[in-house]
């Protein structure tokens, strides 16, 4: 039997389903562009859920990311943030957080200063926006509030004792307790099924009964990020009403629930906003020609061709497959775009893992122009409407500088605005609306 073959035609196609990809799709729809999005990576599950803008500079935590960005533009002129103004970055973050909140997942607004967010081993990190389920932890730390940290029998890599021991210098007196998770006793347990179970009233009731005897005089209870996947703010409110204390979540070893929440949120809502989303398909081949870009995808049941006038490439780095390292060198995997790199593997990594300068390999990637278009070896755009966003960009080390989400969202903003301008759409143009609930299979171009 012949494999079904489907063809989609779009103005803009986003390749990649990380934060940069989803942000690009949202921004493009807000401009009224006709959008498709494809991707295959689950790397969103590796995020803590915090939205960082710039938390570390020169190996030190910084309090003011906006001043930090101003300084970064002076010290690292090649950094992608150097192609963006603070006002644009602010607009991008506000737009993204606004969209996420509108879809029903609470995040705190991006403020003037970094917040001090909790990490699972009792240390903290500077970040700009927190999920509403995590923000009370930062507030409780600021007040040194009397708090209980809860962990679970069979949940690996999350120890209340470890959190409390390492937090003791700044937040003394934390109480700890270990619970068996209702319905998962005597088993190895994982955050995602625990979170899904807490969406049911029965599990919540059993959980409340087990937690209540440990409360004592605490005002806050911290626990791993398991407060539901689809409606965490509702789950948290329901538990708080029963327990009479403030709950807060702490990130866990991946796959972590905060990232799964974001991914499922976008997958649920983007088709209804008119994005032709294929979240489990990898773009296998790509062809550039003067009038546009053709992508070929091979699914389990069918082949799919996408014809796009413009593309935002947000395929991430090595883990997500946007870049590939061979013994002989590093390449971009979809278009074969040039990746400027040193001669030989010995220069990719420094001898010491925790060298505060980070590793050179983490700064390799795609060099772009002011419109975030990848450049060829001669410094000219490879294609007039091929743009790139997110971690695949060269000249940045998002992990060390705690800037991953900010870089993804701001570069997606810039790439989409540049593509939109080329395609003739104007900012804020809602464009033709699609009926809520429209599935990608019903998009124009379906064979």
């Amino acid at each position, binding site marked *: 039997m012949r494999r079904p073959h489907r063809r989609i035609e779009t103005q803009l196609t986003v390749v990649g389903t990380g934060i940069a990809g989803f942000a690009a799709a949202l921004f493009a729809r807000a401009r009224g562009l006709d959008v498709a999005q494809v991707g295959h990576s689950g790397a969103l599950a*590796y*995020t*803590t859920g915090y939205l960082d803008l710039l938390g*570390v500079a020169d*190996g*030190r*935590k910084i*309090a003011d990311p906006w001043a930090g960005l101003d300084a970064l533009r002076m010290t690292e002129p090649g950094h992608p943030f150097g192609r963006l103004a603070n006002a644009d970055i602010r607009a991008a973050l506000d737009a993204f957080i606004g969209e996420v909140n509108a879809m029903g997942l609470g995040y705190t607004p991006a403020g003037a*200063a970094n*917040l*001090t967010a909790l*990490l*699972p*081993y*009792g*240390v*903290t*990190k500077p970040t700009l926006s927190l999920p509403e389920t995590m923000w009370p932890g930062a507030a409780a*730390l*600021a007040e040194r509030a009397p708090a209980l940290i809860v962990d679970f029998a*069979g949940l*690996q*890599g*999350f*120890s209340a*004792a*470890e959190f409390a*021991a*390492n937090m*003791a*210098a700044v937040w003394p007196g934390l109480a700890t307790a270990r619970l068996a998770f209702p319905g998962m006793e*005597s*088993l190895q347990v994982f955050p995602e099924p625990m979170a899904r179970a807490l969406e049911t009233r029965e599990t919540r009731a059993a959980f409340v009964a087990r937690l209540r005897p440990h409360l004592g005089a605490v005002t806050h209870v911290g626990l791993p990020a398991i407060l539901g996947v689809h409606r965490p703010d509702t789950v948290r409110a329901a538990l708080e009403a029963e327990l009479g204390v403030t709950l807060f979540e702490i*990130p866990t*070893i*991946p796959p972590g629930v905060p990232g799964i929440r974001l991914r499922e949120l976008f997958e649920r809502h983007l088709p209804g906003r008119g994005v032709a989303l294929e979240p489990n398909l990898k773009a296998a081949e790509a062809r550039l020609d003067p009038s546009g870009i053709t992508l070929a995808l091979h699914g389990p049941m069918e082949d799919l061709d996408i014809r796009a006038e413009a593309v935002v490439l947000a395929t991430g*780095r*090595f*883990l997500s*497959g946007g870049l*590939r*390292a*061979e*013994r002989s060198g590093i390449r971009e995997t979809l278009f074969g775009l040039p990746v400027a790199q040193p001669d030989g*593997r*010995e220069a*990719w*990594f420094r*001898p*010491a*893992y*925790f060298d*505060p300068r980070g*590793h050179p*390999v*983490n700064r390799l990637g795609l060099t772009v122009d002011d419109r975030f278009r990848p450049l060829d070896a001669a410094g000219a755009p490879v294609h007039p409407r091929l743009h790139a966003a997110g971690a695949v960009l060269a000249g940045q080390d998002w*992990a*060390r500088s*705690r800037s*991953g989400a900010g870089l993804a969202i701001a570069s997606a903003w810039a790439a989409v605005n540049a593509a939109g301008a080329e395609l003739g759409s104007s900012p804020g143009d809602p464009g033709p609306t699609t009926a809520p609930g429209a599935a990608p299979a019903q998009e124009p171009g379906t064979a």
Partner: protein
Amino acid sequence: MSDHETDVLIIGAGATGAGVMRDLALRGIASLLIDRRDLNAGASGGNHGLLHSGGRYAATDTATAAECRIEGEILKRVAPQCIDDCGGLFVAVEGDDPDFAARFPAACAAAGIACEALTPDEARAREPALPQTLIAAYAVPDATIDPFRLVLENVAHAEALGLGRYLPHTAVEGFETDAGRIVAAQARDLRTGAPFRIAVREVVNAGGTWAGRIAALAGCDEVRLLGSKGTLIIANTRIAKGVINRLRPPGDGDILVPGGTVSILGTSSVTLRDPDDAAARAPTAAEVDRILDEGSAMLPVLAETRFVRAFSGVRPLLLSDAAEEDGRKASRGFTLYDHEGQGLANFCTIVGGKLTTFRLMAEKTADLVAARLGVVAPCRTATEPLPSGPGLGWTAPGASARDWMARADATDTILCECEMVARSAVDEIVARAPGHEDHMSLDAIARRSRIGKGACQGAFCSMRVTSHLYDAGVYEGAEGLGEMRRFIDGRYRGVRPVLWGAGLAQTELAEILHVGLAGLDLLNDDAPEDPR
């Protein structure tokens, strides 16, 4: 730390030192074994785990080859639990010297080594990974040995006999001498920084690569060694059933040694002046490429194999003028210095040799020490089986997975998913393995198990084990994160030269975990925080 007193102080907890400890205990002599780091921290842990048939040396050094053969046969009898008697092949491929290959059977015969000629088809039937370019193949009784289990069991047996005690992270900084005898060693606990004194009757220097420096502390300048750095790379798949040697003069990438579920490809040889020069000791990308390019000629599948780490051992070779610049030409034999010509009557240094001959080296050393102490009991290690015990069996690849499956206990969670090391194994090591009287760190547990040795090279399990050690009360303050940081950095130094492909993607994930989630890069950043 309080002062110690012992009949025999053994410096260096590699295979030789551990072997001397057990040999003495079997003669009724008590000893204290110390190491500046921990068990097998030097060449005893930095090798491919080959139990030589002697074939490797047959063409160049008949005496060493015969010594390897005899010792290999003894160890297969007394310590079978540490050995995989998998056999080995010597193979030549197109381009190798056919005359060198043709001389191999006679050279083996001269050393008494069984050697069976195989046709290329017969060899490929045994080892399907061998190439079509094969021109000669011989089967020899090579085997593999787990150097970690071997050393753990030697130490544990001496402890069980009530005649041995082991102290890790203990350095010797000097000796007190009186009338031609060492009366005490000046030691320091490197973890706490506290100095202490060890009163002794006899001192054995089994410091391996560092033996020359230890001898010099006692005023003996006759121990002259050549450090020869050997780099090896590990794949976490078993590529061959048995050992595969390239049949040509020794060179880079000429041996593949399987062990449990892994394979080790070696070896390079680079002369090293200073064994403490960490930068020079670290394996490099260039060495890895050379080993891999050479090894692929013998086993083409290596070009497509994922390697999880590289490591370097520093072979302590006896220095001779001919060997000054080429470690491969230095003697693989061993020497026992009695230091009497240097004016000391109760100090000896045992150096050189190979893992395969560690028992014989220990026997000769213990003979000298026993004679000096007036003990007439003979050596028993050639016949007395090496017993196993709790906390000793977790270093073989695949062992912990088999144990966990057999027990089928759902509450015994897996801490290391790559190598299937369960919580119960970690608890047993913390409670029972040699060194447990001391503080068991993540690094010490990993050395006594497979933790951190699988595909993720410690990225995930370091976090899970650390959390468990907090739960178990092993860590009580902030020290656990510092130990995790040091452990991860140590694993990284081996991962670094094999980072490409899937391994590099894994390292990107590790960076996200260690930096983004654990904040280990900023552990010492005490910048003031301004919580909202």
